[in-house]
């Protein structure tokens, strides 16, 4: 019985919470207490008989407990006999309504009026399966700091009255972008294995993929304004699945960074790649105006489909980076395009594009590393060595530092 309740708790907590927050008018604390109480009540009640619909049972009990609390608080304040009925206007729970509640919860947790780190923490805590301690460990903060961050976010939701709603059609694209940015932030925190405990980092990637899957599921509804966000959510999910499929080959046994071209492609997670490849066409198709995640997923898909680095369709990748640049005109996207052009049309063409970005990227170690690599391929060893040194002077993480040092040493030996 305890095991059953524990399993239901893990599987259903977010849904039950999402549906309860709606009757507490966005009061997260009150809803969390009511959900906790409902699960405690289940321990006794289910010992006699497990209900047919455990989720509906839990939502019913949690909502009633929340409403009781609201009523008691109203009484306490000695309001007039006709206290407002908190449950007023809430229809019995329908399956579609539960899905909507979780989507509402996602939009509220990722409201742009909350700081990005608070959005991430709140999403992981309410929709994800992570405890406050686990989130704190993953982001290398003290548990007390993380707890305080969560409390502050929940207080702001209540006091500034951040709505518990799926935004209307005009605001939806921008708000969906914020949700996706938060999910991708979770993924990158887990993927950029530069700091922290490796196991927890894997958890973050898995959690981000789970949230991405949830967003795809929740936006796959018969509403025209959700079509764009749904396509882009599929792009985000595909992108995360494709990156994550290479997780075991990115770092070698000694903990050293392995470049895409040197990774053992036989060890990539094929099942996961296939799932992602199935998502990419739908992600790209939306009104011919593909979003940045869909485009990045398409690029990652081309890498994943190539049997060897030499067999990669670099021309297509360069074209997709061109398209991405049209949507996101940043110097880093332009640098990625330059690398793809170098592979498709030769190092000289790539170097010309790279050098044109000097003003914007002179402080970025990967700009120097890219130049170094292209100069090396053109046989301009002395210039390449200087560029590697410039990259080393600006690099952030230890594995990257060691990688650049190895390249520099190899250059010296060859020279």
């Amino acid at each position, binding site marked *: 019985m305890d095991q059953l309740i524990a399993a239901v708790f893990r599987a259903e907590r977010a849904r039950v919470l999402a549906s309860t927050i709606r009757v507490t008018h966005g009061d997260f604390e009150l809803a969390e207490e009511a959900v906790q109480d409902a699960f405690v009540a289940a321990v006794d009640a289910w010992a006699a008989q497990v209900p047919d619909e455990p989720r509906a049972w839990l939502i019913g009990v949690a909502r009633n407990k929340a409403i009781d609390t609201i009523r008691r608080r109203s009484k306490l304040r*000695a309001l007039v006999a006709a206290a407002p009925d908190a449950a007023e206007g809430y229809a019995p729970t329908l399956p579609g309504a539960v899905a909507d509640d979780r989507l509402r919860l996602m939009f509220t947790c990722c409201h742009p*009026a909350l700081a990005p780190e608070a959005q991430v923490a709140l999403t992981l805590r309410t929709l994800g399966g992570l405890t406050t301690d686990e989130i704190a460990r993953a982001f290398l903060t003290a548990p007390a700091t993380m707890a305080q961050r969560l409390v502050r976010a929940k207080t702001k939701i209540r*006091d*500034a*009255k*951040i*709505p518990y*709603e799926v*935004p209307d059609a005009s605001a939806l694209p921008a708000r969906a972008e914020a949700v996706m940015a938060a999910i991708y932030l979770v993924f990158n925190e887990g993927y950029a294995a530069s700091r922290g405990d490796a196991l927890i980092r894997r958890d973050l990637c898995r959690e981000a993929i789970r949230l991405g899957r949830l967003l795809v599921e929740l936006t796959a509804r018969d509403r025209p304004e959700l079509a764009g966000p749904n396509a882009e959510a599929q792009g985000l999910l595909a992108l995360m699945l494709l990156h994550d499929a290479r997780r075991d080959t990115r770092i070698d046994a000694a903990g050293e960074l392995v470049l895409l071209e040197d990774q053992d492609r036989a060890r990539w997670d094929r099942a996961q790649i296939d799932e992602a490849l199935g998502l990419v066409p739908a992600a790209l198709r939306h009104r011919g105006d593909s979003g940045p995640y869909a485009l990045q997923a398409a690029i990652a898909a081309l890498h994943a489909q190539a049997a060897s680095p030499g067999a990669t369709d670099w021309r297509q990748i360069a074209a997709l980076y061109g398209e991405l640049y049209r949507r996101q005109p940043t110097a880093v996207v332009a640098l990625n395009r330059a690398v793809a052009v170098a592979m498709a049309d030769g190092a000289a063409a790539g170097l010309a594009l790279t050098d044109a970005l000097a003003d914007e990227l002179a402080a970025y170690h990967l700009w120097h590393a890219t130049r170094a690599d292209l100069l090396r391929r053109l046989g301009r060893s002395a210039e390449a060595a200087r560029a590697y040194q410039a990259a080393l002077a600006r690099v952030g993480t230890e594995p990257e530092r060691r990688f650049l040092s190895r390249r520099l040493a190899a250059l010296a030996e060859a020279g």
Partner: protein
Amino acid sequence: MQYLCLIYDDETKMDAMPDAEKGAFFAEYMKFSADVKASGHMVAGDALQPVATATTVRIRDGKLTTTDGPFAETREQLGGYYLIEAKDLDEAIQIAARIPSARYGSIEVRPVMVFDGP
């Protein structure tokens, strides 16, 4: 629910604006005020005299001190406010975004605290 929209502008930038532009900007404010009044969102609103007229008052150890200027030196100064009625933060943000200074300076949106009365 009431929100106070605090309007922060860079006064030097505003002063440097050509007269025609200043006139258009002022007209925009008149139109915005009329619109929020008509839609029922307006509770109150005022523009403030420049920060050069500000005085900061403090009592420390029972002694009154007055100093010239605002409490904090910042690039943007409080130039006015609207007190609005909105159903939630999203509606308040939408209204705040229509305040002409949102395009030049910034608008701080603060929910008004409500005390539980007896």
